[in-house]
């Protein structure tokens, strides 16, 4: 009895010893800096002016008056909703495509992964060339079809769509892979049963496939939405947040305030706003997910 207890204490000690490196590493490089960001957000902290003065809620009050923050939130909402919607719909369609039997299916599946494997910064920088007014790939195709050459990165609306299209091109592959794996997990008997009940193609997709995939779709919507809110590279390299502030995102704003203006206190307050939005998306999404599971 005593020996048994001794053994389990030793086991628990060993377990904690084994998880310590990971836990410590994350605490020092993620959790502590995050708490410190929260702390700094109550200070006027600038390495240029050499200040570290407590200012209470001043930084947060400034957020509410900042027109850049306003514009950024507007675009964050547009970008997140549009990009997530497109990615989910196209992701489901591509998953369906890659689930069929055809020659070169393996090659097509590998091609699907290429945008996923490319660096976001490469895609964002190259996209600036691809959306170029006179010599870009996209305008060449549009010009051949319609004779027009839209000024993608100069107009508000088209710049917003350029950012969204680039993001969708890069990230839909990931969702397609997940959804494909979900499709492969649905037992074939269910489709046979649906066939006997008279449901073919579209209807069996609507009544069998979609309901069964729904929890997966919802959790992917949450996941994708959170990463849209955190997007940095596309805006940094493709538009610089412009024209004006039409395509500014919060991560980019934190970068500008923190590392161009060198206003650490205010940048920290923006970072906390970013965290708060991620938290809300996560919590609300989790609520939807639980309801979807209960319905299943």
């Amino acid at each position, binding site marked *: 009895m005593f020996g048994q207890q001794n053994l389990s204490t030793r086991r628990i000690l060993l377990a904690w010893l084994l998880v310590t490196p990971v836990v410590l590493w994350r605490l020092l490089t993620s959790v502590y800096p995050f708490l410190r960001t929260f702390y700094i957000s109550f200070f006027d902290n600038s390495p240029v002016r050499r200040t570290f003065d407590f200012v209470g809620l001043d930084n947060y009050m400034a957020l509410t008056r900042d027109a850049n923050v306003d514009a950024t939130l507007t675009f964050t909402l547009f970008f997140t909703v549009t990009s997530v919607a497109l990615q989910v719909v196209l992701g489901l369609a591509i998953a369906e495509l890659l689930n069929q039997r055809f020659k070169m299916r393996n090659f097509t599946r590998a091609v699907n992964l290429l*945008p996923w*494997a490319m660096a976001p910064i490469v895609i964002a*920088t*190259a996209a600036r060339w691809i959306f170029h007014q006179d010599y870009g790939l996209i305008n060449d195709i549009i010009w051949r079809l319609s004779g027009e050459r839209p000024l993608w990165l100069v107009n508000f609306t088209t710049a917003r769509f350029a950012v969204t299209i680039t993001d969708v091109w890069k990230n839909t592959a990931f969702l397609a892979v997940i959804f494909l794996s979900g499709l492969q997990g649905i037992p074939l008997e269910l489709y046979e049963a649906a066939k006997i009940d008279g449901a073919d193609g579209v209807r069996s997709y609507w009544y069998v496939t979609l309901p069964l995939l729904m929890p997966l779709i919802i959790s992917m919507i949450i996941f994708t939405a959170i990463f849209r809110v955190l997007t940095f590279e596309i805006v940094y390299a493709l538009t610089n947040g412009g024209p004006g502030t039409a395509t500014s995102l919060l991560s980019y704003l934190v970068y500008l305030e923190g590392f161009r203006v060198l206003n650490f206190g205010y940048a920290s307050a923006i970072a906390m706003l970013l965290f708060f939005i991620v938290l809300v998306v996560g919590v609300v999404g989790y609520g939807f997910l639980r309801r979807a599971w209960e319905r299943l």
Partner: protein
Amino acid sequence: MNTQLNFKRGIRTTLFTLMVILFMIVILLPIYYIFLTAFAPSGKLFTVPLTYVPRSLAIERFQDIFGALPIARYMLNSTLLATFSTILALTVSLLAAYAIARLNFPGANLVMVGLLASSMLPGTATVIPLFQMYQTLNLMDTLHGLLILYGSALLPITTWVLVSFLRQVPVEIEDAAKVDGASFFPLLWRIVLPVIRPGIATMFLINFIIGWNEFFTPLIFARGAGVKVITMALSEAQVIGARSEFDVSWGNMSAVAILTTIPVFIITLIFQRQIVEGITSGVFK
């Protein structure tokens, strides 16, 4: 009746093939366009309409960027950082994953949830204090400083995926080894590691790609030429020989884009199955 059915099936097959072709064009054409730009001879870069089948290719862009920038050094740094952050992250994640999946200790769930929650903390919400810490600790512009941050970003997902791989492997073999009196590290090395080698290999590939593609971390923490990485050469290559702010060298940019992309494409095309397994096991299990 039969011919009508065949006709219908024929239309469906044609439509399906068209969709596959359209999908391939949407993915491959932009990549091909960057390839064309990188290899276009000087005079042939700006043409209206575009020439999709070039008459000649040139490598002068590559000569230009290798001449003006320490590209080889950047690629070496990218390789070192991606490789060693992957190895470090896999080692400590494997230890943690083993404890979580096998040792059944109080707090195991807390560690799992904590890791997941910490991975949701945005990088931009931690970067300012890290920047200040790195300045005080003299870690700015050092490869080991970068390694700590690269590795940190990999830990949560790697631990999660390795836990899921371990849980799929039967425990009996390890129990038998334990009865034989094998102590912990030999057990891990000889019994556990061989069984979850596929999981380790998968996460090695995915983590290497993530490390190779990193941009935000080096942008903030690597400012000296000795520690810069290949993703930072994109913007530097654009301004080689530039006469003004608006004089952008798209050819040079494309050449760097090609150099940055070739390694990850080779990995992806060869190990497609393993990568897909890694991506999905992080989500499903």
